[in-house]
């Protein structure tokens, strides 16, 4: 028995390596290389702080992702609620003792890293709800109790993040949660009605927005109303993308970013810089890489035996897509500016950590796809 176990675990390990999704891994590594080179460009063609930091984080978190992928999917299933609960505690901690930067209190100081729990919540809310709905029978999904429970799961972190204040992330958290609800089979009518209600209450919501948020909406509707103030970011961003043309200005040749016309070029507007330097073709290739990654994530979901893994992969893939879409729409002037990073590409440890944990769980689902969870 003991020997058998040893043998099994040994063959198990090689089997696991064999089962790693190499296409997904290749996609992630490719994206990492692109993001590090882009970061190198934002540093003006030098290996400076952002490049180094981004590189170190990417290497570290890729390692973490591989580590996670070898952990049994059951482990993630078992700790889902606890993890969610810990992040909630962290968010509460953030609200009270967090580090404030540019007007919002988002980070907690862990001495070796400043962590942004709201970013992690984007992933762990999926995990939590996936576990919840894993056990639910389909007819119970639409029960009053389960709707209320999932509402609380979503609204609790949302409200904790909104008071930081960080509207963008809280919206993204809720979208992650709603995606799980969608896949778990919640009745279409709820989505339809809540969509209708939110559209109708939009003017009401806008009146409750903070002045700077209102300004963002107004600026989105007409960027030229204050070209040097509120509209500056979006105008410069569009100029950068538009001037890139079909083939781009070339690596390290992006004048808009090099001459510092682009704001937030390391983080939310990283795609603008990339698009300026590599043009339409480069942007399409980047989108293609993202598409491949998301496709693989969904593919893994579809081959997973366990409902939990399936639910997680589909939702994670969906939320990745939403994050990418929102970020790009924002920098291309299709949506108002809300803080939302581009996964992997944007500078920012917490966001990358969350995404990598997500990929790790997906990989784990692949490796353990035959595993059923009771």
């Amino acid at each position: 028995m003991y020997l058998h176990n040893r043998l099994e675990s040994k063959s198990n390990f090689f089997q696991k390596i064999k089962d790693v999704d190499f296409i997904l891994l290749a996609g992630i590594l490719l994206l990492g290389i692109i993001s590090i080179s882009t970061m190198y460009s934002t540093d003006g063609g030098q290996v400076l702080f952002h490049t180094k930091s981004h590189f170190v984080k990417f290497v570290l978190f890729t390692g973490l992702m591989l580590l996670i992928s070898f952990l049994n999917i059951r482990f993630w299933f078992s700790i889902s609620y606890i993890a969610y609960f810990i992040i909630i505690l962290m968010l509460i901690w953030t609200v009270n003792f967090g580090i404030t930067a540019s007007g919002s209190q988002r980070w907690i100081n862990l001495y070796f890293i400043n962590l942004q729990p709201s970013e992690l919540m984007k992933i762990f809310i999926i995990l939590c709800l996936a576990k919840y709905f894993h056990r639910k029978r389909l007819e119970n999904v639409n029960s009053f109790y389960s709707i209320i429970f999932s509402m609380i799961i979503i609204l609790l972190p949302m409200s904790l993040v909104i008071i930081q204040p960080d509207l963008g992330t809280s919206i993204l958290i809720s979208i992650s949660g709603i995606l799980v609800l969608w896949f778990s089979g919640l009745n279409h009518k709820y989505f339809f009605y809540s969509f209708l209600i939110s559209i109708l209450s939009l003017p009401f919501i806008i009146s409750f927005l903070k002045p700077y948020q209102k300004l963002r909406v107004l600026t989105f509707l007409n960027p030229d109303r204050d070209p040097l103030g509120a509209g500056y970011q979006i105008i410069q961003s569009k100029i950068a993308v538009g001037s890139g043309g079909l083939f781009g200005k070339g690596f390290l040749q992006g004048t808009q970013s090099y001459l510092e016309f682009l704001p937030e070029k390391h983080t939310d507007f990283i795609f603008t810089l990339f698009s300026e330097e590599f043009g339409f073709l480069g942007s399409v290739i980047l989108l293609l890489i993202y598409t491949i990654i998301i496709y693989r994530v969904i593919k893994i979901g579809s081959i997973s035996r366990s409902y939990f893994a399936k639910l997680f992969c589909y939702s994670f893939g969906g939320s990745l897509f939403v994050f990418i879409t929102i970020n790009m729409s924002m920098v291309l002037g299709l949506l108002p500016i809300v803080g939302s990073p581009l996964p992997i590409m944007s500078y920012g440890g917490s966001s990358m950590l969350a995404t990598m944990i997500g990929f790790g769980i997906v990989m784990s689902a692949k490796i353990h796809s035959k595993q059923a969870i009771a």
Partner: protein
Amino acid sequence: MINQSDNVLKLNSINRRMFILAAAKVILLGGIVSRLFFLQVKENKKYLTLSDKNRIREWKLPPVRGHFEDYFGNTIAGNFEAYELHLIPEEIENFKYTINRVRNILQLSENQFQKILKKKDQIKPWENLIVSNNLTWENFSKINNNLYDLNGVKPVISVSRNYPFKENYTHVLGYVSQANEQDIISNEIIKEKFVQGLKVGKIGLEKTFENDLIGTNSIERYEVNAYGRRISQLEFQKGDKGKTIKLTIDTEIQKLANELLAEKAGSICVMDIFTGHVIAMHSSPSFDPNKFVFGINTDDWQLIRNDPMKPLVNKSLSGNYSPGSTIKPIVALSALENKIINANFRVNCKGHKEPLELYGQTYHCWKKEGHGIVDMREAMKQSCDTYFYEVARRLGVDKLSETAKKFGLGKKVFEDLFEIEKSGLVPSTSWKKNVLGINWVLGETIITGIGQGYIQTTPIQLCLMTAQIANGGHKIIPKLIVDSKTDDEDKFSPIVEDAKNMKLVQDAMFSSTNEVRGTSYKSRIDDPKYQFAGKTGTAQVKRITKQDRELDLDTSEIPYEERDHALYIAFGPYKNPRYAVSIVIEHGGSGGAVAAPLAKQLFKKIIDRHEIRKNFESNKYLNI
């Protein structure tokens, strides 16, 4: 088993929803790609332009102003290298230390120092702070010697206006100074080329030819970052220097005119009687235009402004004087032309004993004892007023004014070349009726005959008049700019009907200068090479009362403002005339005593220079 079927249901549900969402994703992705396509491919040009507009900034540099040259190609308004001192605040580690070092080296006054500090607050830290725009060489080299511990201090050599002949050309050229708001508003070209520190013509030819002189800006194109800091130079587009403008004036004669008028208020004009070239045109007193280039200081300005001799007034062009007896050649010519008199017409001048009386007014000759019986030649020679009273009475003011106008009186000589030029005044009966609304009276005709009353002339008009008398009564068009085109058809067309009449007047003027009892006999030159003919004039500034006449004071005993203007017109050499001269000395006294002697010195120089001028001209053609 129930569990099993539920699982199947759940799987069906999740897979179905997955496909719905996948379809939505494809649509959204398509949306993003098409947006990218729209921005990057379709609207690429627009955004590329915007991006260049963002990053490329042009800096205009002051254009290099064109020169003025005299007839012989000497620069009379040029450029010199001005030494400037700039500070770049951002490059200075310890601004307080550096600015105090600079202050000590340049010995700046508290006032200047405060101005610089104020300026510093108005500029961006990487922009140049101009501490001085005209350092002396001494200070400039001192700064250069101390550069080792003056980081961010930049000595700069720039180009600025210089008038090497100082006060000699002030009234012709005018001067340049810092362009002000008024200059920018009134001239589109200045507006277009304006940069900080641009100097533009304020008056005179500098102003008239501003658009030719100004040149084009050099342009530096820099790549700048979002904060306007220059990153790299992309291009340097060199501007063109402004046009060089060549005058007809001979600097040597101009300088002599200035010397002759030293300490006097007045004007000297010299003109070529065939080409119309203005050889010299000077108004005295003058001032040094270089003082205005960097802004004149208050003391100097007060000195110039409050001078009773009015250095700011260009007397050659805007001094309206009664011509006095210098009008007599025109009166005589008009009478001869209109056949009112002939050369033998005589009048008996009895002096103050029996003055001409008309409607209760008396008209005295200047000579107490009278001239006796005089004919035209004798009357001109001795400038007998009584004779010309009679001629004028017979001639009538309207015929006189017609002749005077033909000779260039009563209208601007240079048309619109100078803003400040006055047109003088040639009165006529209709003029008085129209302008003053009163009828002409005969007494006014009488005094017009000796150049008093309403008649007003500028020195340059008198010069033109004399030139046209000297060339035998042909119309000439005065020229100050060598290349200016004056292809008027009536150029050099005769303006007298009978050339003999002109000859008679010339001869009478000859006698006035070269024969005993002539009013300017003392100033004659016997050498036929330099011999000239002229006519004196003494214009009253105030009416001579009976008391004055009895007192008969010497000029020096009368207050300055009440002294007569001394005038003299002349042409020479008499045998073969080429140049005409007009001299006006404000409040100088009698024309014969004060103005005519200047002509003597002037003609010597003019005739000597003629050879050189002629050779220069023929050489010029040979070179072509």
